C-alpha cells in the first residue's frame, strides 16, 4: 500500500473553458480511506481518473508511493479501480473478468486460480464464477467489480461512486461491508462520492471539493463540527444547514432583512453569511439567541420531524421530536447558542474565525 500525492495538479477541458482541477494539492496518506466528496462537476471524478492514468494533468505531478506516475500508462501504475457502472466485460465469465488483470501481468495459472478463489470467498461470490455478468444482480456485479480490483493487490484502490447504482437498502449494508473490508486489508483507498452520508460514515479522511478546488480536508467529525468553508458547511450534514445573509455592524450580526440580530465578539468588514445547523436549534424559549418564527411546512420523518419556519424573510429548518406539537402557521420561538453559529465571508466563503 502506498500514499498518493497530488502536487498542484491542474486539469482543464475544452481548451481551457472548463477547469476541472485547479492547482490541487493533496496527500492521501498510506493505508488510509480517503473520500473525495462534492457535487457533480466539482472535479472529484477527474481527480480519481488522474490517479488512475485515464487523464493526464495539464500541469502538476502525481506520485504513488515514491514514484512519479504522472504520465505512466494506467496498466503500469498498479492501481485498481471500481467503476460506478462496474464495467465488467460482458463477454467473459466472472472468473475471467476477475482473472484478466492477473493474466495480463503474466501470473502463473495456478497462482491465478488461488487468488481468485481467495478473493471471491472473501466477497461471498465464489459460486458465481462460471456465470456471465448479465446473469448477475446489481449487487453481485458490484462484488465482481470489487473482486477484480482486490485480486490485483494494487498500491491504491480507486472507487468511483460504487454504491450509487444500488438500491437504497443494499446500499447501507454494503457501505458497512466495504468499510470493514478495506480496514481489514489496511488498504489505501480513494473513494469518490457525492453522498455525504457515505463519506462521513466510511472514511478516515474527507476531502471536500467544489469547482475544481479543495475546500477542506479533515476527518468526518472535524468536517462536520468545524467547517472551514461555507460550501463544506452546506454540503455536509444530514439536514442542510441554515444560511442567513447579512453583515456585521458594530459587534453584531444583522441579517439583510434586519430580522435577525446576533451579538458577536468581533467585528468584520464586508458581507457575511451566517450558518446554523437545524440540529442546533431548539423550539421554545431557552438560553441563547431567540427568534420568533412562523411555521410554514412540516415534514414528518418518522423518528423526528423537520419543520420549516420563516423568520422575517429568511426560511429556516429546524428539527424537532416526532411527538412535538406544531401545526402550520403556528407562531413559535426558536433558540440557539451563538457558539453553534458559523460565520462565513460572503464573497470567498471562507470561515471567519474570531
Amino acid at each position: 500500500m502506498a500514499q498518493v500525492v497530488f502536487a498542484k495538479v491542474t486539469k482543464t477541458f475544452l481548451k481551457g473553458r472548463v477547469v476541472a482541477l485547479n492547482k490541487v494539492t493533496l496527500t492521501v496518506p498510506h493505508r488510509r480511506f480517503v473520500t473525495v466528496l462534492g457535487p457533480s462537476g466539482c472535479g472529484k471524478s477527474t481527480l480519481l481518473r488522474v490517479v488512475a492514468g485515464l487523464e493526464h494533468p495539464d500541469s502538476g505531478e502525481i506520485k504513488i508511493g515514491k514514484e512519479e506516475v504522472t504520465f505512466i500508462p494506467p496498466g503500469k501504475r498498479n492501481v485498481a479501480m471500481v467503476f460506478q457502472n462496474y464495467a465488467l466485460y460482458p463477454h467473459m465469465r466472472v472468473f475471467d473478468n476477475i482473472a484478466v488483470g492477473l493474466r495480463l501481468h503474466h501470473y502463473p495459472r495456478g497462482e491465478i486460480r488461488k487468488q481468485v478463489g481467495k478473493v471471491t470467498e472473501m466477497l461471498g461470490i465464489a459460486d458465481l464464477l462460471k456465470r456471465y455478468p448479465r446473469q448477475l444482480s446489481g449487487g453481485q456485479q458490484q462484488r465482481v467489480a470489487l473482486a477484480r480490483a482486490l485480486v490485483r493487490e494494487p498500491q491504491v484502490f480507486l472507487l468511483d461512486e460504487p454504491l450509487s447504482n444500488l438500491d437504497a437498502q443494499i446500499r447501507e449494508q454494503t457501505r458497512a461491508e466495504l468499510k470493514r473490508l478495506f480496514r481489514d486489508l489496511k488498504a489505501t483507498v480513494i473513494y469518490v462520492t457525492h453522498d455525504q452520508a457515505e463519506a462521513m460514515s466510511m472514511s478516515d479522511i474527507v476531502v471536500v471539493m467544489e469547482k475544481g478546488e479543495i475546500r477542506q480536508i479533515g476527518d468526518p467529525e472535524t468536517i462536520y463540527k468545524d467547517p472551514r468553508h461555507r460550501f463544506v458547511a452546506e454540503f455536509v450534514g444530514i439536514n442542510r444547514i441554515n444560511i442567513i445573509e447579512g453583515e456585521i455592524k458594530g459587534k453584531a450580526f444583522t441579517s439583510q432583512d434586519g430580522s435577525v440580530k446576533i451579538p458577536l465578539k468581533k467585528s468584520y468588514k464586508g458581507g457575511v453569511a451566517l450558518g446554523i445547523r437545524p440540529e442546533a436549534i431548539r423550539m421554545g424559549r431557552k438560553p441563547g439567541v431567540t427568534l420568533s418564527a412562523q411555521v410554514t411546512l412540516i415534514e414528518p420523518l418518522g423518528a423526528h420531524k423537520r419543520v420549516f419556519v420563516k423568520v422575517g424573510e429568511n426560511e429556516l429548518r429546524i428539527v424537532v421530536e416526532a411527538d412535538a406539537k406544531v401545526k402550520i402557521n403556528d407562531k413559535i420561538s426558536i433558540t440557539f447558542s451563538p457558539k453553534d453559529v458559523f460565520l462565513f465571508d460572503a464573497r470567498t466563503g471562507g470561515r471567519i474565525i474570531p
Partner: protein
Amino acid sequence: MAQIVAKRWFRQKRRACILALLTFCLFLVAVPVEAATLRMIGPEDVGGAWGEVIRRFQARNPAIRIHYISGPWSTDERQNMYIRSFLSGDPIELVYMDVIWTAKFAEAGWLMPLDEWYTSRMQEAFLPGAVEAGKYRGKSYRVPVRGDVGMLYYRKDLVPQPPRTWKEFERICRRHPRSPGQSCIVFQGMQYEGLVCDFLEYLWGAGGEVIDAEGNVVLDSPQAREALRFMRRLIDEGWAPKAVLTYQEQHSLSAFAEGKAIFMRNWPYAWTILNRPGSPLRGRVGIVPFIHKEGYESAGTLGGWGLGIAHGIEDPEAAWRFIAFATSLEAQRILHLRRGAVPARKALFADPEILRTSPHYKDLYAIVMRARPRPVHPDYPRISDTLQKHVSAVLAGVETPDEAVTIMARSIEGTVRGEQEGLFKRLGIDYDLRRTVRNTAVFTGISVPIEFLLGLLIALLVHARFRGRALVRLAVLIPWALPTAVMAMSWQWMFNNPFGVINDLLVKAGILSAPLDWLASPGGGMFAAVAADVWKTTPFVVIILLAGLQSIPRELAESIAIDGAGAIERFFNLTFPLLLPFVRVALIFRIIHAAGIFDLIWVLTKGGPADSTRTLGIYIYDVAFRYDEIGYAIFLTVLFLLTLIGASFVIVRLTSLGYERVR
C-alpha cells in the same frame, strides 16, 4: 477453461503466428516462375495443328518448353489478353498477332524488332503483303505464319463466267434466275472487325482510301460514298439478305453452303470446308478476286497471323528459334494440312503435297499476292471501331452513306490527330465520347426511375405484414447478392436467339410475333442491359426504402388516419416526405453506380451492338486498356468524378425538406 488455455497458447505463440503469417504472405508474393517456358495465345487448336508443331519443336529443342494458351474465339478478346499481359509487366513471350495488331503493339514498344534474325533475304520467301504488314516504321516485328485474303466465291455450276466489276455483278444479280429464298450474295455485315475487311474491298475497289501514304485521312471522298452506296444497294435491292447484318464468317459460309446464295465473300478457309467429302457443293465452287468498280482495280483485304517476340523477355533467342520453326515450310505445311491455314510462304503455293489436297491454290496465289493491308496506324483499333460502327449503321439503314462518311472521316481524324492534341482539345474532338455520354444518360435515365418505382412498390409490399414475408425478403435480396458479371452471362443466355427463354415466353404470350435477336440489334441491346440492371439493383432500393418505411413511427400513421386521411393522402403527406432522406441516399448510390456501370455491359454486350450500349465506364476502360491512352483515360475519369460529385450535391439540395437543417 479450454477458452483460457487456448488464449494463453495463442498469446505465447503470438510471435510464431505472426512469423507464419508473414511467411505465407511472402509465399504469395513470390510467384512461382516457370523455367524457360514460352507462352503464346491462340484460338482453340481444332485439328491439333499447333499441337503437332509444338511437339516437333520440343522434340528437337528439349530445353525449351512452349505453352499454348487456348484463348477465346474472338480475336479482339485475345488481343486484349495480350495487351493486358504487356501492361501488367509480365508479357506473354510469343506474340501471335493478327495483321492489324502490329502497328499498335510496335508503337507502344511492346515488341522486339526482329531485323537481326529476319533478314531481307528471308523476307523474300514470304508473301509481300504479309511481310509489309509485319513492319512498322521501317522495322520488322512479325514473321508471317498464315496468310489470308478476302475474295469472291461463286457457284461454278450456276454462273460459268464470274463477274469482275460491279456492273457485271449487278447484271448477274438482276438477270440470273434464283430459287426462292436464295440471295445473290452473302458477306459479313455484323458490326465487328470482319465488316471492316469487307468494306475496304469495296472502298479500294472504287479507288478510295482511308489514310494515304503521308498519313492524312482521305476517307471523306466521293469514292468512299460510292462504295457505301453500293453496299447499301446490295441490301436495298434484295441482292443480299437483311440477315447479313448478323453474319460473321461462319454464318455466311453456312448460308452459302446451304445453297442460299450464288456468291459469297469470304476467306480461303471456306474452300476447304466447302470441298470436304460429303459436302453438297463439292467441286461446284470457284474463287476469283473480289469485284471492283469499273476503271479501278480489284483488291482483297489482307488477313493472316504471324509471330513476334515481346519486348523485354528473358530469352529472346529461344523465342526466335520457335518462330523460325513455326514459320518454316514444314510447320506451315502442317498448319495447312491440319487446319486449312493458308501458308504465308510463296513456295508452298506450288508445293505438290498441298496442291494435291487444294488444287485451287494455283488461282489463290494470284489473289493473295495482291492482298492489301488495312490502315497501318497504332490507333487502328479505334479506327476500326469507328468504321465498323458507321458502316454497320449504313447497312442497317440508320445512317445515310453521306452522313456516315463525313462522321467517320472526322472521327478518324480526331483519332489520328488526337495524340498530339492537348487533353482539352482532345475532349472537344472526341466524337465517340458524345455518343458514350448519350448512352450513359439513356441507360441511367431509364433504369433508375424504373428501379425506384418497382423498389417502392416492393418495399411497401414487404413492409406490410403477411405470411411468408421473410421468404420474400430473402428472395428480394438474392439478385443483389449475386455477381453481376456472372449473372450477365445468364442474361445473355436468356436473351439468346433461338435458345433464350425471353424470346420463347414473349412469343408464346403473343407479345412478339417472331423471336428477336436482342443482343444483335441496337435497341434490343439497351433493353437487355436495362432489364438486367433493373433486376439486379431493385433489391438495393428496396432495402433502403424499407429501412425508411420502418423508421416511420406508427403513431404518426395512426394520427394522420384519425385526421381522416385516406391511404393515398397518407402516402403523399406522411410516408413520402419522411422517406425522402432514404430516397436521397438510394438515389445517389444508384445514379453513381448506373453511370459508372461496367461489369454488366462488358459481359452482356461489350458495348455493342453498334456501340449502342457503350457507356462511360466501358469507354474509359477501352481508352485505358485497349487504346493504351492512360493519360486521357485518367483525365476523363477525373471529369466524370467531378460530375458525379456535383450531381450528388444537386440531389441532396433537391431532396432536402428544410426540417432537416438542424445543425
